């Protein structure tokens, strides 16, 4: 119990640290949200108007006061308002986060569905044709930048074959068919690199586990190969795969920006980049808070689960 409380406390401290660092970083980096708002389209803002907008946005208050105000708001679940259109930050995040989660989930399903079976099959015949082709393709997919792959997919599937729309987003409730058409290419683009990682990790882990004594014993006992693979090899080999996938998916929460740009997919990463460009402080802080809470929360959950599964972790 004390161990769990310590882990939760550490996680909360980590989140606070992230919020504070982001607050300081975004405020100290050059660039002024009021000036940017009034300089749109190459306009020349009147310094007096910039000062007015500073006052309206609360930017004329001392930094410590702004920080304390932010923390007070966060404690009460208020992430503030966007400096660009005064819309609640929480609304923008609520719009964008599910889209990004759906994109990541779709990519993960494809990556796991392709990477695990192929990695397993390659590991059962190391050096075979599948292993050689798989390893080469995985290397290619890992080295291919997502914007190149994404652009190629648009060229082939949208502009040449006309199978899919070039990009955009429509909600599932508005038009389910078009929703999935629009999801397909960005999800595939993310899935490609992810599948390559899953393939390589699975291949290595399965090959390693297949050499273990308990697998040899099972074979000696005459257990059917399929059962050995299912019960003894995969169960153990997939633990490192799950860990790596967890980290990869966590990183994608704020890391799908290039895919979002290529496919005009309005997710959380694009919102974060736009907010940083506009120096929209509350929006940046809100998004980073949500991403860090999800990331830290996911890791906390995994830590607690490891603790349940393996008592040695709790004693460490």
């Amino acid at each position, binding site marked *: 119990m004390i161990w769990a409380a310590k882990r939760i406390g550490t996680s909360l401290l980590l989140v606070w640290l992230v919020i504070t660092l982001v607050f300081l970083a975004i405020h100290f*980096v*050059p*660039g*002024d949200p009021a*000036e*940017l*708002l*009034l*300089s*749109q*389209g*190459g*306009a*020349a*803002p*009147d*310094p*007096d*108007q*910039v000062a*007015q*907008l500073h006052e*309206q946005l609360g930017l004329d208050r001392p930094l410590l006061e702004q920080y304390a105000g932010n923390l007070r708001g966060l404690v009460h679940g208020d992430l503030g308002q966007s400096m*660009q*259109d*005064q*819309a609640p930050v929480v*609304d*923008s995040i609520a*719009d*964008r986060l599910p889209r990004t989660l759906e994109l990541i989930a779709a990519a993960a399903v494809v990556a796991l569905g392709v990477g695990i079976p192929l990695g397993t099959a390659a590991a059962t015949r190391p050096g075979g044709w599948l292993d050689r082709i798989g390893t080469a393709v995985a290397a290619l997919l890992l080295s291919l930048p997502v914007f190149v792959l994404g*652009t190629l997919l*648009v060229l082939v599937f*949208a*502009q040449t*074959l*006309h*199978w*899919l*729309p*070039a*990009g*955009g*987003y429509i*909600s599932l409730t508005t038009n389910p068919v*078009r929703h999935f*058409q629009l999801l397909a290419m960005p999800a595939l683009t993310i899935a490609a690199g992810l599948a390559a990682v899953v393939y390589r990790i699975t291949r290595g882990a399965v090959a390693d586990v297949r050499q273990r004594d308990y697998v040899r014993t099972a074979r000696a006992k005459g257990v059917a190969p399929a059962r050995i693979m299912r019960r003894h090899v995969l169960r153990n080999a997939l633990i490192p795969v799950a860990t790596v996938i967890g980290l990869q998916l966590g990183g994608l929460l704020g890391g799908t920006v290039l895919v979002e*740009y*290529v*496919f*005009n997919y*309005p997710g959380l990463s*694009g*919102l974060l980049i*736009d907010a940083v*460009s*506009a*120096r929209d402080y509350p929006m940046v802080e809100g998004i980073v808070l949500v991403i860090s809470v999800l990331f830290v929360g996911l890791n906390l959950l995994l830590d607690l689960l490891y603790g349940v599964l393996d008592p040695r972790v709790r004693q460490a």
Partner: protein
Amino acid sequence: MTIRRRALVAGTVALPFLRIPARAAGTPGQLVFGLSSYPPNFNPWVQAGTAAGTVTLQVHRGLMSYGPDGQLRGELAEKWERDGDAGWVFTLRDASFHNGAKVTSADVKYSIEQVSAPKSTAYMRAQFQGVDRVETPDPRTVRIVMKQPTETLPLWLAAFEMPVVAAGSADTGKTPIGCGPFTITKQERGVSIDLAANPNFYKPGLPKLKTLRFVVYADETARVAALQTGDVDLIEYVPWQSMAGIEADPKLRLQNTEGPFMYLTFNGATGPFKDPKVRLAVAHAIKRDEIVKSVFYGRGAVLAGAPLVEASPFHDKTLSDGWAYDPARAKALLAEAGLGGGFNCTLLATAQYSMHKDTAEIVQQNLAAIGIQVELALPDWATRVSLGNRGQYQFAVNGTTADSNDPDGLSALIDSTLGPSAARSFDLGDGSIAKALAAGRAEFDPTKRAAIYTDLQKLVLAQTPIVSLAWRAQGYAMAAAVKGFTNMPGALTFFSGTTLEETTLGG
């Protein structure tokens, strides 16, 4: 199992023949417009960028506007005329707001007062602080009395940042009510804006479209791809590298105009560019055709004088090449300034926009040829604006467009007495340019006004408050079935959204 396998094989074989209808656009009467960005806000009087301006023009209209040919015309004003030395009288046409209320002189007064209010952040605040009073003798008549005689008032009222909204509707926490050809029916922040035709629009038979949908494509390649695949019918900000491909496609049409331009601004408070001879040397050292060719793929034109479009009646052709490439003169000017041995300096631009970075690189190469060693500073756009506004630079690359095709539309760019701004040079000049601009603004005689602006163009060439570099083509591309949309000439290109009221699609 066999059936499943067969179905799978059949499905796979059939896949190339199943052309999923990807088109979201192309429906008669329903136009899809690919915007370059989502408007940061919908404050009708704030300059929120060109994409925001296009949307604003659908929902809001002002007293004046421009026709597709760029000519000033009455919008809510049926007629307008001078009244006394500093007054203008506008007679309103019979028009209604989206809530059904009539547009009255009280609404015009309210809108002007919001713009000129002391705490206003309106783009046109400085100009409308020159208003002495707004009188409303009857609901259809507005009398605007300026503090000084102002010939350019109708031009200022034609700015898309000067719409008339229903009195009281822009008070804190409310959504301003407009009277434009369309009303917003749905918004998905960052994604799209849906509009429907305003059935009570004051121009009979307009708008011709039933619905208008703005979809945001921030990435230029994605925007072009969306047009080519038929996901959208019309796009703005066509990237220069894609223009040839669009022109070659019989299903598409490209409309270009040269209105926006690239230029250099200087810090006049400190450093070598305080001296006008050094600025003039820079002006004569730039191979502008290289900028047109390399940065804009040939889609632009050399600009070696005051950035006044040829379509302007005040454009003086004899002065349009005053800063022509002349390295010998540039070197001589440097020598006259006591810098014959050259010097080192830093050029501020941004890596965020390739046209700024690429222009900076060409300027760097050209200046090296006359002994000026330039180091590039390429921060992100936000930092670049901030440094520019504070005068924390030596000279900088800029790109923008004038407020209108009238020389007065250049005020914000060449009048350094207006205060520090990233868009103009910092702490530069003796005020003579400001005086010339003020004289032009107050002069009603066209001949005398032309003479004032000829002198202004000479002043600009001599004082070099900026160095013009190149016009850049500003393009809209559309499906061939789109009719009635016009890329308006010169500096008015970003007013082209006005013509969506006359646009049709198929049918």
